[in-house]
């Protein structure tokens, strides 16, 4: 029923997902309950907010252009289609063994397990469902470390990891473990020589994220995996931003544990998966104990609708992988090319040779990030990572890259996804040019720079 309605809503730029893109936008602008009543006027409302006039007035019922794909992604309507039966008629508990409600839900959960396993080249038995990548990271890091506590007490990770990884390591440090935080190069990658030197006979785990959520840099996972396998150290990677976006194969890359997030993959929020290798076996101490579900590694009723959604999202990602990758690459080139040709003193953070194109992090000199975000009212963006936005510090990831404080403060992250269109990117480029120039006009630092004053010679008076 829902999918038939979606088909009547007209087309947008993306070819094979045209009707889906429209539906997703309309769903946002009008709210799900009114989708069945949408007609021509709604279609116009959608195209209206692509006015490249730099106007800042927000029309009442429209939402900003969404360019924050690293924070979360919209639910693909085909994923919602897959989930609906499990939110309505098939409400059984997948662990109920005595009746059909349980059996059919269990079947759906098993299918989802296969879909996720085939996305990463794993066996379905190696997939455990969790409440998200944060829980998966916690389980992997704390679980492996605590299991091998007596014999191995060292963990290696990187300075640019997600907060949940860094915090799990901090907690383990308090429990008596030793943790090495590897520095990163200016481009954002860890040095393999540093890693080799840090590895000890007592190292239990190496945890390095595949794609960084703030700058999009891709680490050399296959090589890290090979080095870990040689020394029989477990290798965990947080693939929340990578799964379904870049090719992953847990066997070719020697990955022992992998975290996957549902809502980064056009799937639902509140669900994720942890891949735990069986051969050679990875043992871990569960952090959530109880009835022994998920092979005893994560007790609790498996949330069947969410898990079915995650499975559907994984299958879509695998199927449409090439199209999605070409789409974000094209949009990224359009965005970066457009901005760099029209605005001066723009730096792209991260090593351009090893980047996921869908995450573009740019620093605009002499412009403060927050003020640019406020100016770009019609565009939903982020400055630094969503998880650290509560604190007032500049992003620790950018600082780890060696960016000066002022460059870290002036960074904006553009997240491109399956449903982003070329006209949205064009609008953003126009607005960025207009507002960056306007803000620079107001900036005393820009004035001084134009006059040839070296900003590093300024004596700032302390208050």
């Amino acid at each position, binding site marked *: 029923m829902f999918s038939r309605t979606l088909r009547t809503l007209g087309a947008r730029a993306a070819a094979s997902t045209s009707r889906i893109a429209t539906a997703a936008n309309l769903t946002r602008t009008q709210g799900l309950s009114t989708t069945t009543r949408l007609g021509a006027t709604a279609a116009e409302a959608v195209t209206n907010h692509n006015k490249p006039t730099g106007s800042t007035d927000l029309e009442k019922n429209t939402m900003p252009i969404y360019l924050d794909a690293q924070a979360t992604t919209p639910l693909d309507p085909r994923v919602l289609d897959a989930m609906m039966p499990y939110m309505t008629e098939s409400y059984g508990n997948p662990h109920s063994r005595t009746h059909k409600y349980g059996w059919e839900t269990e079947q759906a959960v098993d299918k989802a397990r296969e879909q996720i396993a085939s996305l990463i080249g794993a066996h379905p038995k190696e997939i455990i469902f969790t409440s998200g990548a944060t829980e998966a990271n916690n389980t992997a890091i704390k679980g492996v470390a605590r299991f091998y506590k007596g014999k191995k007490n060292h963990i290696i990770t990187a300075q640019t990891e997600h907060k949940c990884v860094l915090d799990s390591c901090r907690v383990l440090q308090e429990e008596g473990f030793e943790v090495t935080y590897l520095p990163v190069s200016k481009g954002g990658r860890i040095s393999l020589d540093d890693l080799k030197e840090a590895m000890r006979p007592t190292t239990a785990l190496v945890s390095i994220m595949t794609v960084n959520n703030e700058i999009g840099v891709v680490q050399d996972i296959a090589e890290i995996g090979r080095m870990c396998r040689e020394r029989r150290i477990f290798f965990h990677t947080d693939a929340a931003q990578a799964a379904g976006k870049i090719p992953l194969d847990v066997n070719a890359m020697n990955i022992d544990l992998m975290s996957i997030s549902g809502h980064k993959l056009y799937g639902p929020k509140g669900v994720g998966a942890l891949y735990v290798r069986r051969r*050679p*076996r990875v*043992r871990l101490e569960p952090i959530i104990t109880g009835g*022994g579900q998920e092979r*005893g590694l994560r007790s609790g009723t498996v949330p069947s609708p969410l898990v079915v959604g995650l499975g559907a999202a994984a299958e879509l990602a695998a199927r449409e992988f090439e199209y999605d990758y070409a789409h974000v690459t094209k949009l990224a080139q359009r965005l970066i090319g457009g901005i760099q040709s029209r605005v001066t003193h723009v730096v792209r953070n991260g090593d351009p040779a090893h980047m996921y194109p869908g995450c573009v992090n740019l620093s605009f000199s002499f412009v403060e990030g927050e003020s640019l975000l406020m100016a770009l009212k019609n565009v939903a963006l982020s400055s630094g990572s969503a998880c650290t936005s509560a604190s007032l510090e500049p992003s620790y990831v950018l600082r780890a890259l060696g960016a000066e404080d002022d460059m870290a403060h002036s960074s904006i992250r553009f997240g491109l996804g399956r449903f982003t269109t070329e006209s949205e990117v064009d609008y953003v480029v126009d607005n960025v040019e207009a507002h960056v120039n306007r803000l620079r006009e107001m900036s005393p630092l820009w004035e001084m720079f134009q006059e040839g004053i070296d900003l590093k010679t300024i004596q700032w008076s302390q208050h």
Partner: protein
Amino acid sequence: MSSLSDSVYYEKSSEALENLTESLEDIGDQMEIDDYDIEYSSGVLTLKLGAKGTYVINKQPPNKQIWISSPVSGPERYDYDLERGAWFCRQKDESLGTLLNREISEALGAEVDLPIK
């Protein structure tokens, strides 16, 4: 009925089944047998040996026993003997370790030494 306390039973039975799981997993990894599968959850250890059949070894807390279903010798129940420090079945007075070592060595065609007496 066993005179074992609940906590001692829990400790001894968990130890037995966990050690068994670990060593059977290692054997599986080393020997690379077809259709070999081992799963231990909720106190039930299921060992699949493909065409040779499936073993189910589980805790039975109400009786404070370990029960086994063997494709070779059928069902059996074991009580923990505090003096001898091992699980014994009443009638044949054979320990669980002895039975498993014998039957699994036979099934795999290679001598195995499981960490259970």
